[in-house]
């Protein structure tokens, strides 16, 4: 009868005491998130109601979040028109968790949800975005779905045919060395598991390193769990979760922590000694092509990107700014910085990080997804190579199939921006 966190969450959301791995459930949804692809969700939603004579109303407008982030401000009339349609729908249905293109409250969906306290421990969260896995950082069971599935959630308030996933337990102990970050841990783990190693499974994170990791780092590791194929990553909620929700997100109401039973049964257990990790890098064109950064040091890079839902938070900008302050980015290398949210942008502005980065030669873009998915800003030229703190390096990801994307931590990105070649920050700036 012992259960993992996700089993407990799914049991509660399905009105049961206990659920087994493989059991098929229809859990109710606590939060349903979309971004610009709400345009497609809307289309499918109206199709469900078509011909029924029933008025098309979402099941609960307070549980739907829509965040514009992928192409902001709009890059084309098509996107602008999609955004306009969504805006009208949001008003008509009284959807309250809506973040439009406004400097003060915009941001990447996976940053906005935790920042505004929309996600709580024990929630079932679905999002029309594969990195919805991020919100496991707050102890929720959170996973990506397609637009038609979301239309079904908007209609029924539950998610059909969820199979209780098996869980991989990852135990991380030890203290990170200098310039080693949660990003290096998750890259290392993806390299070990491979891109499909956790397919249809959940990764539950444990150990001292995770206990001592703040929510920002937890968001990074849960965010990238999907790159090992995982349905979700999850950190069982604890004091840090409460601290974040109270102090950062300003949550006032009750917070109920959900933790796994001590002897819950796991699909497999992986142990990692964080103190032995060195800076990692994911080489083209798959995220599991991970190596210690030393193995590719010296490769010339034309573009450095710092940002995204993986590493566009204040601590990420802080380390980059501290390494670049008073120095200049190498000639022939462009550096693009896009803070993950308006709140982060404001704070980085007030603390002077953006000034230091700009003075070093970085281009500061508005909050949003920016070059991460190669549709809006910062596309690569033929044969160019980028080093990026984002989460995907698939062929064409940064807008050009004949270019290369390497993935790393903000520290590696900043050290490399100074030299113009891939550089291990522990070797100093040469």
């Amino acid at each position, binding site marked *: 009868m012992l259960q993992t966190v996700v089993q407990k969450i799914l049991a509660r959301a399905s009105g049961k005491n206990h659920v087994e791995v493989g059991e098929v459930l229809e859990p109710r949804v606590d939060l349903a998130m979309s971004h610009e692809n709400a345009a497609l969700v809307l289309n499918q939603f109206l199709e469900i109601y078509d011909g029924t004579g029933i008025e098309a109303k979402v099941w609960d407008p307070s549980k739907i979040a829509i965040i514009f982030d992928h192409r902001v401000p709009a890059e084309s009339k098509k996107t602008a028109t999609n955004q306009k349609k969504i805006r009208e729908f949001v008003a008509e249905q009284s959807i309250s968790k809506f973040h439009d293109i406004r400097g003060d409250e915009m941001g990447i969906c996976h940053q906005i949800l935790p920042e505004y306290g929309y996600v709580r421990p024990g929630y079932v969260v679905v999002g029309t975005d594969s990195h*919805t896995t991020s919100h496991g950082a707050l102890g929720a069971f959170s996973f990506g779905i397609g637009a*038609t599935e979301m*239309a079904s959630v908007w209609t029924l308030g539950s998610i059909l045919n969820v199979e209780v996933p098996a869980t991989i337990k990852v135990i991380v102990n030890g203290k990170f060395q200098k310039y080693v970050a949660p990003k290096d841990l998750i890259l290392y783990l993806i390299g070990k598991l491979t891109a499909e190693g956790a397919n249809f499974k959940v990764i539950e994170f444990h150990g001292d390193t995770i206990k001592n990791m703040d929510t920002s780092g937890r968001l990074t590791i849960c965010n990238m769990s999907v790159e090992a*194929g995982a349905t979700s990553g999850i950190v069982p909620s604890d004091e840090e979760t409460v601290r974040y929700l109270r102090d950062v997100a300003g949550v006032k109401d009750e917070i109920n922590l959900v933790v796994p039973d001590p002897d819950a049964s796991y699909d497999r257990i992986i142990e990692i000694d964080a103190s032995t990790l060195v800076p990692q890098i994911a080489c083209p064109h798959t995220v599991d092509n991970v190596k210690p950064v030393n193995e590719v040091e010296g490769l010339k890079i034309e573009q450095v990107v710092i940002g995204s839902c993986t590493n566009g938070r204040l601590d990420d900008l802080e380390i980059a700014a501290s390494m670049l302050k008073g120095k200049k980015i190498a000639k022939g290398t462009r550096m693009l910085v896009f803070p993950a949210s308006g709140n982060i942008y404001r704070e980085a502005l007030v603390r002077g990080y953006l000034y230091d980065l700009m003075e070093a030669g970085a281009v500061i873009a508005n909050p949003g997804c920016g070059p991460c998915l190669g549709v809006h800003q910062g596309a690569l030229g033929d044969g160019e190579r980028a080093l990026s703190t984002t989460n995907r390096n698939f062929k064409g990801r940064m807008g050009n199939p004949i270019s290369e994307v390497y993935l790393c931590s903000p520290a590696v990105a900043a050290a490399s921006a100074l030299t113009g070649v891939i550089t291990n920050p522990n070797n100093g700036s040469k």
Partner: protein
Amino acid sequence: MAKVIYKLEDDISTDIIYPGRYMATVLPTETPQYAFADIEDLNKMLNDKKAPPNSVIVAGKNFGCGSSREQACSTLKGYELIIVARNFARIFLQNSINLGLQTIVCPDAEASVGDDMEISADKLINKTSGKSFEIIPLPQARQAIIDAGGLIPYTRKRLIEKAGK
């Protein structure tokens, strides 16, 4: 009978199936033109209508990994393609079921371009080579959605039941 028109490697991501730069295009009626936009010969073959319905693409493992973009399914569904792979990434597989794109999980499939395939509930028969391969059936829970004709009619049915109460 279904003919193999193309072979692809492992880990074909949704960025390959439907590049991010076309994401502003969302309607299933408009997405097919961008299928495999960065694989020029395949994109051309599809756009030139050289692939009749039920043409087969054979891929390796982890087909459809990456983004949840449903365009990656609707773009293939637009040509009524059949995708045979060793396995599929979770969200892509679910999207396929929801939209009615035929995805066949066949870990040992062997085929070359031009081979004729016959697909039954549990077997993939390569008529050209004479070999047959086991198909792993979809999880039972998913079958109900397929039987209903996809997630839209399935949800519509549930909606009407709910409203009737």
